[in-house]
């Protein structure tokens, strides 16, 4: 089913019997657990309108099925952007899909992820209830923040129908400096750059280089780049370096994991390739096989499976972290019949 309006979505959820699985553009179809067969698919890509955009308020409301690239194209003429650069964006990832998977890219270093950018949501629950939380202003503490709750919910709590986001100005200039180093040095070098208070917007260690990206006024980024150890990259080399960071997500077996920043070397030793937001400790990790995933899970609590080869029987989630019982309780209240996304969180629930 491919509803084109909120009302159609609500009706589709309410009037269809049995299990449902939500799909956006399908760019993260392999993330988390595989949906159990037999579920009716609800595709959100028909919900792709821009709902409200007032550049001076720096907020924008969209339907969840809008691809992020299209939204960025709407914002760019006004000198604005969504400060979210998840690797699968160019492949057509939708705003709702990025929220449901809590995906992010190197800009997480300075802007966080969807949880930090979403200021309002409209969701359709499994029983057809349509509910909003948040609103259209950035600063807002009225009511519970369901937008954050739905980050990382993989379509199991409800269908995200509309999303309100905060926008940021497009920088006048950017500059990237690459410093060849290993994982241990990357942790130290990142710490020194921060201590020098140069405020990079991204600090990513990938394929043996620490990439520091600056954004801001043209002369300011040049001067900051000039005092940063390493080689400033010209336009083509810069694009290529960041492309390689995104490519890590395309390897055969990939997980996203969060650790203390200084744990990077322990993550890297299991990896064939890593794209690590080294200063915040969020790593996209390509590994040789299932056994390495299990080893990472044995060492770290928050590991999300993003990609695995066809035929792999690796469970999507490892040992439950302390909040998993609470996740089950929330799932029970939002979707007591277990209609939505069955299998996504197997074996946890």
């Amino acid at each position, binding site marked *: 089913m491919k509803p084109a309006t909120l009302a159609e979505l609500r009706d589709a959820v309410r009037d269809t019997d049995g299990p449902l699985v939500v799909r956006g553009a399908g760019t993260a179809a392999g993330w988390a657990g595989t949906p159990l067969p037999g579920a009716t698919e609800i595709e959100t890509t028909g919900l792709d309108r821009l709902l409200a955009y007032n550049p001076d308020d720096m907020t924008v409301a969209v339907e969840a099925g809008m691809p992020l690239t299209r939204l960025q194209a709407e914002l760019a003429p006004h000198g604005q952007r969504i400060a979210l650069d998840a690797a699968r964006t160019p492949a057509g990832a939708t705003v709702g899909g990025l929220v449901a998977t809590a995906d992010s890219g190197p800009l997480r270093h300075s802007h966080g992820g969807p949880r930090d950018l979403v200021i309002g949501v409209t969701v359709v629950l499994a029983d057809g209830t349509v509910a909003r*939380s948040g609103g259209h*202003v950035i600063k807002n503490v009225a009511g*519970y923040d369901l937008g954050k709750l739905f980050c990382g919910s993989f379509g199991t709590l409800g269908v995200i129908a509309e999303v309100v986001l905060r926008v940021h100005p497009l920088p006048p200039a950017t500059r990237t400096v690459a410093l060849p180093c290993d994982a241990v040095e990357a942790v130290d070098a990142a710490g020194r750059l921060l201590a020098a208070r140069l405020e990079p917007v991204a600090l990513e260690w990938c394929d043996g280089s620490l990439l520091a990206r600056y954004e801001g006024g043209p002369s300011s980024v040049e001067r900051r780049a000039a005092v940063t150890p390493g080689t400033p990259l010209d336009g083509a080399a810069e694009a290529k370096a960041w492309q390689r960071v995104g490519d890590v997500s395309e390897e055969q077996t990939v997980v996203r994991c969060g650790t203390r920043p200084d744990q990077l070397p322990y993550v890297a030793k299991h990896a064939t390739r890593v794209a690590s937001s080294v*200063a915040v400790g969020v790593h996209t990790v390509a590994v040789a096989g299932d056994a390495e995933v299990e080893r990472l899970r044995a060492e*770290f609590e928050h590991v999300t499976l993003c990609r695995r080869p066809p035929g792999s029987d690796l469970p999507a989630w490892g040992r439950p972290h302390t909040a998993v019982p609470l996740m089950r309780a929330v799932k029970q209240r939002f979707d007591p019949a277990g209609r939505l996304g069955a299998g996504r*969180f197997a074996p946890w629930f």
Partner: protein
Amino acid sequence: MALTDLRDKLVADLGRDGVIDDPAHLRTYECDALTGYRVVPALVVLPRDAGEVATAVRACAEHGVPFVARGAGTGLSGGALPTADGVVISLQRLRRIIEVDPVNRRAVVQPGVTNLDISKAAAAYGLYYAPDPSSQQVCTIGGNVAENSGGAHCLKYGFTANHVLAVDVVLPDGTPTRLGGDAPHQAGFDLLGAFVGSEGTLGVVTAVVVRLLHTPATVRTLAADFDSTETAGAAVTAVIAAGIVPAAIEMMDNLAIQAVNEAVDAGFDPDTAAVLIIELDGPADEVEERFAEVTAVCTAATRVTIARDAEQRARFWRGRKAAFAAVGRLSPNYFVQDGVVPRTRLGEALARIAAMADEAGLRVANVFHAGDGNLHPLVLYSEAAGEHERAEALSSAIAELCVELGGSLSGEHGIGTDKACSMPRMFSTDDLETMKRLRAAFDPAGLCNPGKIFPTPRLCGERPGPYRPHPLESAGVIERL
């Protein structure tokens, strides 16, 4: 009787000095900083560590007695208001900074640690904790987590929710758990994000892992006078439209300036209609480039004073942060309101507030975080002159005006007891019922800080009134089904 049994159990577990039950002493806990609401609790417990918090919560749960956690009691929405037959769990004895980790730029602290003490402990490493509510010298991090506190600098730096990596909490049945992790990536739902800002209704915090930032290399601050709040508001819009994200943009109107000048030597022009405090911080080159742009945008200002040093900057901020208290010099009583409008509707909001104040025959001083449209109108009145009800009605009407203009009932003070009855202005029944599902998942028995956030017939009676559509709904942009 449950309360007697509970008291005996708590005394046995926490010791005699861990439980307060004498009426005189209990009165200390009858309200938070929203002093208009007062309820003396049945008991107060003073746990010494996370284990004792869990013991106290479990005992309350087993006896079916409601409880509310309390930090410094600086909240402005009655979020820590006790229930008469309930227990207050004071976190004042949990005030240890457990760890400052400069390598990973984070600190682990107990909930009773004050906001400012985190930055003081981090200062040795050139680090600080960014959210800076005006009460930061006394308010606690546990309270900040409950309220998702903001502050003057959240325009650039965000709110508590953006700076907390994990919390250890005792769930309402007494189970300890951890939400969040070592990094901003969680396997599964963002329960941490849902918890921060839940106003103490989902559990009791026993430890907080906060992110620390390096103090910015350069800070530049100016105070710009304007001949009206409208021209000041236009300057704010111009700064934002230039693609600049200042660390802070604050506005005070003439009445607020007069109050501040009486209270502290902040050096604001007593005759100006409005003053903007604009602060930029960051790498030196970047700040200088951008500061020149800001100064250029402030052409409509009648006077621009650039802070020449840290001392003058501190004076500006002392003035701004003293504003609430200073208003007490102009008026025997006042209400502090907290609402948000889309920034582009600031001028309209201020004009409407002025008209509403005239109609009510009361004065309203405006102090606000202009950059994010977060208004703090201060409604001045006199109890002695019998103006209480009129002032309260005006204050509530202002919050509801913010919703009507497409904004929010609260930007940082929370809903608490104060605005629960206004929630139906902003959210439909289905919205609120959906939020209650989250509450029920954490607290099926409904014992954890009951009566907050959600309207109840007992609290609100007939007051809430019918739901009114959001402006975008009226415009046909969004629909409510």
